[in-house]
């Protein structure tokens, strides 16, 4: 089973793009989707049940979609600042199996207070969905899990 986690605060304008993207993902067999305001340790359970996990999050610093592998790391604390690496570290700490994990960073314009996506973020949604489909299909070179590469 693959797990895709969309992260974001919908009251912080483009910050909600990760959740918008996973909301538009087409269901498929073997795909579990989570849409969350922020990462929390409760996600350890679905993560350890997954063969692969993909985090989808807004990033004001990047100019293009970026798909990269992430690994457990003790960064970011366990509160509002918990990131994918920290969550995977959490999973490791409680003895959970950590799957092959990826982060899709979506370029956005603003994370100021407000509802709705900017035109830039809206345009990125379509491209992100295509990228996720490729990830799910393992159709792009370099996207297969480390064990299979």
């Amino acid at each position, binding site marked *: 089973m693959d797990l895709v986690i969309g992260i974001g605060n919908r009251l912080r304008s483009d910050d909600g793009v990760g959740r918008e993207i996973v909301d538009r993902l087409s269901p498929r067999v073997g795909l579990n989707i989570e849409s969350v*305001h922020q990462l929390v*340790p409760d996600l350890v*359970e679905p993560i350890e049940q997954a063969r692969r996990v993909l985090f989808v999050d807004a990033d004001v610093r990047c100019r293009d979609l970026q798909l990269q592998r992430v690994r457990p790391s*003790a960064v970011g604390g366990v509160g509002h600042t918990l990131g994918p690496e920290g969550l995977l570290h959490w999973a490791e*700490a*409680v003895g*959970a199996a950590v799957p092959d994990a990826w982060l899709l960073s979506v370029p956005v314009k603003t994370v100021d207070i407000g509802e709705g996506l900017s035109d830039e973020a809206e345009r990125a949604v379509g491209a992100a969905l295509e990228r996720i489909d490729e990830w799910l299909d393992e159709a792009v070179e370099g996207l297969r899990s480390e064990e299979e590469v």
Partner: protein
Amino acid sequence: MEKQIHIEPVTRIEGHAKISVFLDDAGDVRDAQFHVTELRGFEKFCEGRTLWEMPGLTARICGICPVSHILASAKTCDAILAVRIPETAELLRRLMNLGQMVQSHALSFFYLSAPDFLLGWDTDPATRNVVGLAMKDADLARKGIRLRAFGQEIIDRLGGKRIHPAWAVPGGVNRPLSEENRAWIRDRLPEALDTTRFTIDLFKETFNTIESREVLGTFDSMYLGLVAPDGTWEHYAGMLRWVDQARNPVVEAHDPTKYFELIREASEPWTYLKFPFYEPKGYPNGMYRVGPLGRVNVCDRFGTPLADAELEAFRDCQNGQCSGRVFDYHYTRLLEILASLERIERLIDDERIVSPAIRAHAEVNVREGVGIHEAPRGTLIHHYWVDENGIIEKANFIVSTGHNNLAMNRAVQEIAKTYIRKGKVSEGILNRIEGGIRAYDPCLSCSVHAVGHMPLYVDIVDVDGQTVRTLSRE
């Protein structure tokens, strides 16, 4: 020379705060203050909004206890509509509040506080956190995660999401409980009960003497909580009861909608958090405590077998009196998780819980309403005044953390006096002062509606107001 020590921020609580410790000429503690340094002002910007918006609007006060505000607000709106909500709606609201008790108490115990006392107060702060706890006892940490997730999942399955579910509405709730979700809750209950009983046993084994539970100080106060008409622990309805340290009733049963007859709020220039006090005793003598320790001290019984057995064990060492130990907030938090799970079991077994009759409809019938229930951190009060169209003219919130403000200040004073001598301050001492605050599980986001993280600064200021030393921790 008098010195002043500031601790800022206090970590692993919700919101911003700092602590000042005032030393006398000998370097011993003369006084201590718990400052809440930020303000969001929800009471003010609710003015002009419609009654119907209030549950959703006030839920945004906090991401940890939105359920508490939704329910208090919905109850206030019920009063203004002058409706009696369907019995299933009340059962469902109770179910969600119990889910909230479980998740919030589990968060406080396993994520925020257990690292202090299970890893050791003087453990390096870099590892004295929940990940450090997981490194030491992965099984316990995982149990804690799953217990909190269970409470969160109840909220999600009732309200459609875990945070800010717009589910309780004026007149009832907007979605019934499905049989599928009822079955899910029932299936997961045994594990949650096992985890809670395991953790209570662990807690009792670890802190098996009164002395070991006095690490954060002990002092006398009054205690406040809702109780059912027969004195049983209550969390959604009931009457306000105050008891003194000897567990003698100060007020046996007071109509909660007339809270203002007995509770007043004082202000101090050095904090945004008000000081509610028991009016007949004046300020600051009218100090009382709420939350798990308050509720457990005021109730006659939990009304469920497992929790009542544990309550008896808890009270065996009290000689019939209230526990005044700050550390016992943790103990009573566990007892309340157990009681909540047993109550959840009863509710799930009640056939009325899946009835589709969940909402009464009405318009504004009275211009003022009060809604009170027990949030995890203590008694939560919403009070609205509206015009004939249901537009909010004024709102007053007295939140759980506010009730404990006087007591938190007292706790800091007691710990500081024990651990700061001749002006000597160490990291371990600061941790205990923070621990004293954290035991109350204060939600400053709720109490003053502050946001953000908590740094830690200690300023030592001499009698002339000059800072002679500053320590800090991010």
